[in-house]
């Protein structure tokens, strides 16, 4: 049973067209939710950590939000350099993260 599900699998946007990515989770005791970006051929790069429902974090054109069942990564007026794969991961207990499969974002100019 998947604990972390990301949607959509892929998203194409025009430059400036705002949208949101979704990360839903089924873990019972969430201790933290993480967003990463991963460029082709590279390792994941940390973006945000969210610890409790209602929390929000922002960085440039990205804003991450958290509810009790899901997280959204809002992308405002995206640029081509925002094209990458966005990964979501949850920390339930112990020392381990569980990752979703990712959303591939393509922003065309």
């Amino acid at each position: 049973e998947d604990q972390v599900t990301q949607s959509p699998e892929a998203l194409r946007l025009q430059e400036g067209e705002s949208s949101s990515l979704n990360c839903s989770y089924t873990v019972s005791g969430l201790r933290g939710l993480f967003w990463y970006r991963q460029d082709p051929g590279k390792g994941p790069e940390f973006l945000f950590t969210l610890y409790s429902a209602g929390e929000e974090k922002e960085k440039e054109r990205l804003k991450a939000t958290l509810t009790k069942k899901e997280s959204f990564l809002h992308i405002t007026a995206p640029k081509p350099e925002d094209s990458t794969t966005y990964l979501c991961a949850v920390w339930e207990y112990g020392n381990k993260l569980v990752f979703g499969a990712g959303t591939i974002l393509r922003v065309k100019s």
Partner: protein
Amino acid sequence: NAGVTQTPKFRILKIGQSMTLQCAQDMNHNYMYWYRQDPGMGLKLIYYSVGAGITDKGEVPNGYNVSRSTTEDFPLRLELAAPSQTSVYFCASREDTYEQYFGPGTRLTVT
């Protein structure tokens, strides 16, 4: 700081061969992790370590072994390579906060 480094970047193995994937970090992190990433799948945890001399299995440990003799190094050993081990392998480390920092990866093909 170099962060997390991994060698080699690419490797092709024949079925039944063995090899060691190297991982090193210069951030003095106690926690280190090995993941594999297959197309369309999330990162799967192979092994992890909470400090020198302490390792534990993750979600997909079969066919792999690890050791942690120093804080800096966390090598991953593949014994008797199989085609199912074709993947991209990532090493990561973290401090007491939970943000993990990843290396650039090793792309392994077993034929």
